[in-house]
């Protein structure tokens, strides 16, 4: 089985700041990693994913994430946040068996102040 840990429950930043959201996982085999964003009252929106290849992946709205096998991590970053980035961010992992569905972390709430 796989587990996901998001160490920060809440992150507060100012507009224009950079932000890094941490995600660590445990799983022994090939892994599929993704990040989702959830604005208040809405469904999860896909940001980006990693399965193989370049460990740095680009997503929508300037987000990127870097996979590290040695650290078992998939941290999400953005160089300059906007107030509209205020939301809850979920890291998700899945093994090779796609039918098992995604395993989510608890989420990190990001509050962006002007």
């Amino acid at each position, binding site marked *: 089985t796989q587990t996901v840990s998001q160490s920060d429950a809440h992150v507060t930043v100012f507009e224009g700041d950079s932000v890094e959201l941490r995600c660590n996982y445990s799983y022994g085999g090939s892994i599929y990693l*993704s990040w989702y964003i959830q604005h208040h009252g809405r*469904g999860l929106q896909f940001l980006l994913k990693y399965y193989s290849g370049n460990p740095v992946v680009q997503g929508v709205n300037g987000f990127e994430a870097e996979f590290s096998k040695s650290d078992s991590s998939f941290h999400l970053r953005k160089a300059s946040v906007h107030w509209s980035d205020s939301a809850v961010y979920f890291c998700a992992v899945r093994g090779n068996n*796609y039918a098992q*569905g995604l395993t*989510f972390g608890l989420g990190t709430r990001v509050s962006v102040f002007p």
Partner: protein
Amino acid sequence: GPKVLQIPSHQIIDMGQMVTLNCDPVSNHLYFYWYKQILGQQMEFLVNFYNGKVMEKSKLFKDQFSVERPDGSYFTLKIQPTALEDSAVYFCASSKTGGAREQYFGPGTRLTVL
């Protein structure tokens, strides 16, 4: 982007009653999922459905749960009978294929069992 709709957004029922949660997935998607999120806890995978069959289910998918998608209509989750511990937000998701394709999520249905 592609949207997954869920009806209703909120449902309040008495324990022991039957409830059906409806999901309108993205039109050309073939894989369908249900997830459950109890307040303050992680979102957890319930079931994956493809080609008219349950492909995989978790231990949370109790015998009282069933899913179907008759003739390409709504993808439904039925709980009969409901229990107090079924109170949660239920998220539907769909993806075009299995494998590394991202899942698109609906906004969730908040189910309250009294």
